[in-house]
């Protein structure tokens, strides 16, 4: 009966360990793959924003393809992808049922910005680490504004103060939830969103960044200048452009 005693201790002991819920949940919280991380710090957020391939080098190109800067031989056209070919030829149906890469890549930038903005809120960075908050939040706002401005230029009617309230804009997505689908807003709402984000960015960001690829107060002003220009608000456009030039007279050397 000595052994019985042992067993009857061991089994309840195991069950007890299992039943202690906290330990159990902790044990099950470990991710399945080490490379799958959750956002835990501002460092993670900054790393998301460091992707120049998303925020800097994947700008919508279809406008460029459609203009006369590019020449493709007729014999080579068959090998060009359908959307680009149609854009080049100004075909009536450009997309032929396919998804626009330009549209998609812009929204990809937007969801990154939204994820970062949500994480800032969830991790209460604003109160815990105000300096980082200004830096990260400013960048995210800038990128969101910038992506929306590209989308508006490409997919909406030009801004007309008389009809902006009723002209169809693009979908303004402020959350990263994939199950939330928003409908098209008006052109006016789009511009308000862009101006709001860009203004926030300009107020949060510093005048210089570590890299020319990172947004700063000046780039936010530059963006505002361009947006106001599209809105025919030349006065404000001039104001912001002037502020940029006053603070930085250097040109970026693109031949790197």
């Amino acid at each position: 009966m000595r052994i019985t005693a042992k067993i009857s201790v061991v089994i309840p002991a195991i069950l007890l360990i299992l039943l202690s819920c906290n330990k159990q949940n902790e044990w099950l919280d470990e991710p399945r793959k080490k490379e799958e991380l959750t956002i835990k710090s501002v460092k993670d957020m900054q790393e998301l924003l460091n992707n120049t391939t998303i925020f800097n080098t994947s700008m919508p190109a279809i406008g460029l393809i459609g203009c006369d800067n590019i020449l493709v031989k007729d014999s080579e056209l068959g090998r060009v992808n359908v959307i680009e070919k149609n854009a080049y030829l100004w075909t009536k149906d450009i997309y032929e049922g396919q998804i626009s890469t330009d549209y998609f890549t812009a929204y990809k930038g937007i969801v990154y910005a939204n994820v970062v903005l949500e994480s800032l809120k969830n991790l209460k960075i604003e109160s815990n680490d105000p300096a980082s908050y200004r830096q990260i939040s400013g960048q995210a706002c800038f990128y969101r504004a910038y992506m929306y401005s590209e989308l508006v230029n490409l997919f909406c009617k030009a801004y007309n103060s008389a009809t902006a309230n009723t002209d169809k804009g693009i979908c303004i997505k402020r959350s990263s939830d994939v199950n939330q689908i928003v409908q098209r807003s008006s052109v006016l709402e789009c511009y308000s969103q862009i101006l709001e984000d860009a203004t926030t960015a300009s107020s949060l960001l510093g005048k210089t960044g570590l890299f020319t690829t990172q947004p700063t107060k000046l780039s936010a002003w530059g963006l505002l200048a361009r947006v106001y220009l599209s809105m025919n608000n030349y006065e404000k456009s001039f104001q912001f452009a002037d502020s940029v030039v006053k603070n930085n007279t250097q040109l970026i050397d693109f031949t790197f």
Partner: protein
Amino acid sequence: MGNIAAILVYSFFTFTMIFSVAGPACAQEGTTPPQQTLPQEKTFTLSGTYSIEEIFDLMDKETGIYVNRSSKVIDFSQEVTVYFRKTPVAEVMDKVLGDRLVDWTYRGGNIILFRSQHPVRLNNGEQLITVTGMVMDNDGVALPGVTIMVKGEKKGGVTNGSGFYKIERVHPQSVLIINSIGFLSRQYRLDGEHTKNFILEPAVAQIEAVEVTANTGYQVLKKRETPGAYNVIDSTLINRAVSPNILDRLEGISGGILVSRTPGTINWFPKTPDGADNGFYIRGFNTISPNSVNPNPLIILDNFPYEGNITNINPNDIASMTILKDAGSTSIWGARSGNGVIVLTTKTGKYGEKMKINFNVSMSLGLKPKLHDDIHFIESKDYIEIERTLFSQGFYEQDINNTFNRPAITPVVSLLLRNRNGELNNLELENQLNQLKLNDVRRDFSEHAYRNSFGEQYSINIRGGTKDFSYFLSLGHDRARTKFVRNYQNRTNVVYNNIFKPAKNLEVNAYINYTQNNLQIGNNVAFRGVQSKNGRSGELYPYASFTDKQGNKVPVVKDYNTLFTDSLHRLGYLDWNYYPLDEISNNTNKNTLQNLILKASINYKFLRFFQASLSYQNQRQIINGNNYYSANSYFTRDLVNTFSSYNIATGRITQQLPAGGIMINGDYDWKANNVRGTLGVNRNIKSHGFRLLVGGEVRELDAEGSERAQAGYSDINGTPVTNLNTNILYPLTPVGQGKLNTFLDFDGSTSSFLSRYISYFSVLEYNWDQRLELNLIARRDGGNLFGARTNRKFSPFWAIAGGWSVDKEEFWNVDFVNRYYGSSYLTISRSPDVDPLTGLPTSVILNPPNEDLRWEKSKMLNIGSDFSLFQQHLEGSFDFFTKKSFDLIQRFDVAPQTGFSTVQLNSARTVTRGGELTLNGNWKFSRSVGWRPKLNISWISDKLLEYDQKPTRQSVILLDSRIGMVRLPGKSTKAMFSYKWAGLDAKTGDPQGYLNGEVSKNYTAMLNNFHTDSLVYHGSASPRIFGNVMNDITYKRWNLSVNLYYRFKYYFRKPGLPINYSDLLKGPHQDFSKSWRMAGDERYTNVPSVSVAYNDLRNQFYQRSEVLVEKADNIRLQDIRLSYTVTNTKEISKVKQIELYSYLSNVGIIWRANKLGLDPDLQYTAVLESYRIRPTISIGAILKL
């Protein structure tokens, strides 16, 4: 339902019959009263003539042995003359009875007389003898309760608990008849032996009914006591086939299981445990996202899930397989059981069993593939003509003038170009072209890179036991040289399984299972596998040759323009030619897997009804991959040259990669730990039986791996060059810039996988009077799957199974079974590369936040019965089931505004209905001729009830490249759709379809039209009806077994001719000869014209068109097995049984619905190897000691 009722009415409840007979086996009236020895000292003296009555009376007075005369079998008044002097009573009796048809027996101090046709008498000084011996089964297990009769006499005996029997007073030449339920009866003529042992052959169909137990991995249950749909496959059936892979041996011998047939490619071990589709399905397809949700059945080896590739297991070590099909039997396994469960049980020894040795050896020869069977080929002369025509149309001009990336120019185009440039006259051109037309690259592949495959299997196991100890030790070794020259696989298995009984009621099990699996797959010169990365011909052009006329190696044109590469070689670059003959041996890709399972468990019975057990299992799997490309290999030379640059000014060449080979090392380490504790109660109160099992289980699988490429590797001293700058942009040849680590993983990469489960379960079984059974299973599973929310982490399961057995059995189950899926919360991943512009570290979003994701669920209802007809000559079972799956995870194209293109959602719903019918016959026509037919029929029909994704052009074309599924509610989950066909355009040979009811060539519109007027729904792409027919014919010691598979009611899409020349050059196809050339051809052919101008949509339309869909129904002769068995029954010598067998598998298709001679189950476009599977011939021997 009428038919079913009829079967139920006519069916017998076999089991009770058998049990009632098997119990007291001495039943026959008066046959075998317990023999008692007549005391030898009792003698009798008398002489003279007396009546028999008088003699018996006098004998009674003198010896006290009374002869009972009440039976009046003889006339006691007859007179007999006798002369006895101290004669033993037995002799007295024999003399007195003389040749009268009467015999006697001694019992309880009396002699009883009875009638006998062949009374036993002592003649000519012969002695009656006492025969003793033992009766056992094939495996040497003693058989109690076996009746042994002496022929023609009412005399005999029954074996006791140890299988021993004893019959006294037997004539030395009598014939013994041995009978036992469940075994074939036999006769034996004694030749004066005093001991005689018998080995009985099982009567298979009957023994199943008596002894079948099902192992659920938690419990071993008697089949008749357990309601539920499952199949048990014993080792005889497992050992019928020869394949070293246990799953291959399951194919076509069990109902409800569909094995998707892929060509016999060499086994590959998965290096990370993320569930590639094994192509093995129990009761249909349970998931529609096989890449996200594990689609494989759960495989249990000796009570715990087996992590890793099932091909590591040696089939010779397996005693039985139980396939759990319905919810009632699978739900004990909880979350991972949704696809069914296969339980493998290793052989064990038995307490008190004599040592037994089994030896199994076999050799298999697989015939070299016939590459000429492949439809992806154009004869050299035709291919050359195509190139000529295209050349004259200026098709190659771009390539010829390309000084950018220097695409490959095939030899024919080069010749044509030289001719045009005046370097080659017309006569010489024709001569050379005619020479090339004689080449056939298939011949060269077949001659140099392929061979007959050859496999060997050796297996030896020893088992036995004492009163409180049993052991099983097995050693197995398998070797195979594959159909590719130089490639091989070998596997060694050691299993040690021990059970001790250190105290009464206490059992300890210790188990060790070790596998080493070696795989060499260095030769990758496969037909259609040598692909050009930069040229018009994708595969090697058909007129390529490995050797010149003298048999010396020659290069073939592969990636670059040879004029260009030759000029570089002269400058000092490495030779950039591809020599197929060398490549066969230039790469050595060795993979080694070592797997060790250690298990210990203790079992303790206490307080009469309780049983507690605790088990622990540790599994460790280590996989090493060494993929070495020698310095001479094309792979290495190509990479070195790509990273070389030539400085025109200095005339110097800079090589970024050091001299030497390239070695890619991979190391993977899996650790799995399981602990399980259970407590069981087993109690019968009058006619109520209760059984309760509760327990808990914790599992963890932690797998990690790393892989790294090394350059400048020396095979001799095993050292690489380490100071590479892998992240610097270098100039590339012929064009561009690149980093080393984007070409090969010089920086190394790691992978990890962690799976954790915590489960609690309870099983309550109740039976009333062994007639009504009720099972309740409840289980709660938690895993590290769904992120932070506990209520999503844990999932409950339950099942009810009921059974009623009077003269029928009927089962029904209802349950929820859920399955696993990955992450539902936002995850990001740190990129291995820094940002290309800033050099800052970056992260990317891996998985969108998707909090609605949850477990998949299914409900199943199963009704079934076992039956037996014609005095047990025909036994069988049938099951009907309905399975409703919901919350199935589907890939969902989300609006691009979310920033993601697809997400996973729990939104699909399916229903699967089906059933299985199994019939097993057993007829014996005479003593030596027997016939045992087996029939399995499974039928399945599934339907997608809900699917949220709207079909798009992409879903027709891209969703599944092989079967091109469109998922539409109301159709099969593996639906076969195609574009409606309107014949060929008589003017151009273009394919035509329908758009809005009109014949159309608007391919864009048709491809985007998902409505029924452009599409045809054929049916399911997976068999709706399938099964096998196996016939076993025994004649004396010979056994012939033939297995036919059939699959009906499904469709396949045959690969079509690519109808753009540039596609055709990349993927040749024999239909080219049937393609439309001129007006009028459309009356004879459905193959469109091939177009010079590239038109992708036209080709896509044709590839998915109705004309390429064929009925897939087929019957194939899967295998034939002929064996000769000698069982040593004379005495227990060393060898008890020898079986010699030959086995022919993959014999061929004997009927098919398609008229094209295609094997519908070969995945024609998905794999390179689309030639027919050729037969394998095996011979082997099984020796039992």
